[in-house]
């Protein structure tokens, strides 16, 4: 419990700044919406006729940008990118920092098994990403609500945030797993974010070319996309299973390797 509280306290400032970042993102994005909607219907009509692959190249996506919900759907990808970066870095740093800051000895001589230490740290990580998710949800509902003229949007936001949370957990555990395996505490966060960046670029490539559709299950960014989530109101079963698979495998790897690794002090 002490470790959990210690980690919560240590990450409080960073969580505050990430929340502030989300606030600016949502306010900034939706303020753009207000100016965009006034620019007229005709351009959006034309945009809607662009083939899907070209829209992906140009960055419009599959949304009706004249509606607050459509605009938020486009914004969602960037919110997703930010929260998953937060999760991946948190997951890898929360484990790697003991070795980086040379505090491993201090922690390891405590009468606690490594597994219990990991559990406390992962619980703190989960609590942090859940808080960021709740902050994003509250901000989205209140800010997007200002712009949606009578359109029911809360349900859409809730399902999007549920998808976001699953992805956050995926990247938290991926980051933790990488840190548990990696011998060099300095590079584990870099590896975790490289994986994330690679996954993002693959998702962009899949959008651009339908011949790459087979790769869609390779990148978690394609698991919970805004457009299908908002259209169907439910998750794709395979995507959820794959996410669970990644979480279980990397969670298992975290415990397995951290318990056996020669920690550098």
């Amino acid at each position, binding site marked *: 419990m002490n470790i959990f509280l210690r980690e919560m306290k240590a990450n409080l400032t960073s969580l505050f700044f990430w929340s502030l970042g989300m606030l600016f993102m949502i306010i900034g994005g939706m303020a753009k919406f207000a100016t965009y909607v006034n620019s007229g219907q005709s351009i959006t009509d034309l945009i809607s006729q662009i083939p899907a692959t070209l829209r992906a190249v140009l960055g419009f996506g599959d949304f009706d940008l004249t509606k607050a919900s459509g605009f938020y759907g486009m*914004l969602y990808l960037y919110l997703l990118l930010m929260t998953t970066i937060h999760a991946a*870095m948190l997951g890898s740093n929360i484990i790697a920092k003991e070795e980086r800051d040379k505090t491993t000895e201090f922690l390891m001589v405590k009468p606690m098994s490594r597994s219990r230490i990991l559990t406390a740290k992962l619980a703190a990580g989960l609590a942090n990403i859940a808080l960021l998710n709740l902050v994003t949800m509250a901000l989205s509902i209140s800010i997007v609500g200002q712009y949606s003229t009578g359109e029911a949007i809360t349900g859409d936001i809730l399902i999007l945030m549920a998808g976001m949370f699953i992805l956050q957990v995926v990247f938290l555990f991926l980051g933790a797993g990488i840190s548990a395996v990696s011998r060099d505490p300095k590079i584990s966060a870099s590896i975790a974010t490289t994986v994330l960046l690679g996954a993002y670029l693959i998702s962009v*490539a899949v959008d651009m070319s339908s011949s790459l559709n087979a790769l869609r299950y390779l990148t978690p960014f394609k698991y919970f996309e805004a457009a299908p989530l908002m259209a169907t109101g439910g998750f794709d079963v395979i995507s959820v299973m794959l996410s669970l698979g990644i979480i279980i495998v990397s969670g298992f790897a975290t415990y397995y390797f951290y318990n056996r690794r020669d920690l550098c002090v």
Partner: protein
Amino acid sequence: MNIFLHELKSYRKSFIIWAISMAATAALFLLLYQAISSDIAAFTKVLESVPEALRNALGFLVGSLSTLPGFYSIIFTYLLLCGAIQAMNLGISIVSREVSAKTADFLLTKPVSRAIILNAKLMATLVSLVATNLIFLAVTVPVALSQDPGTNMQLFLMISATLFFVQLMFASLGILVAVVTRKIKSVVAVSLPTVFGFFIVGMLGSVIGDKAVRYLTPFKYFDPAYILANSAYEVSFVVTGAFLIVAAIAMSYLIYVRKDIHTV
């Protein structure tokens, strides 16, 4: 000179890996070009049926896509993202790691002034970035030519060169951040939120087409549409960019020679 060579050697592996992975990503995207060019042809037909004023507003954007440099300029956004992360990581770590690795007292007790130390580190950063760009070009140019032998090389190289400019901006920003802060525990924890912040501002700005936003983010200093149309860069942005780089570096020198550097 010793410091310069030492830094260059210790970052050699890192920049080679970065350059090769960026080049591989660029090659992957370039290989998509032929698949997309058929979609573009189809859309050009749709365009013929809309009013002329609207066609002009959007037509140029799509018309420019139908050439390889035009297509490349749009996917290049993502390569700029990777390059910016590399440059900012390099800029932050080359200055801050003396403190984080506890080697600052070792270095600062050598009979060289702090200005000379910073000089050597800046030169090592510059050479690493130049080398990254050369490796990158050595891979992407042949791939582009294999996809379309008639590629307009001048435009292709002009677009590729924006990677170097953007990297210089982020590297000098990274150095400034590293000089201002007392101790940086994790380099990526600083660089990633910063770079992605600028990237997202740029992406949102480009969907909306907001002009003022362009000065806020280095990612938008080089507008591909302008480069494609005029075979030139926009002078006001180049000047602003150069000014920002010089200002950041000058401030870094001023602060670094006076800074209280914590040892052990």
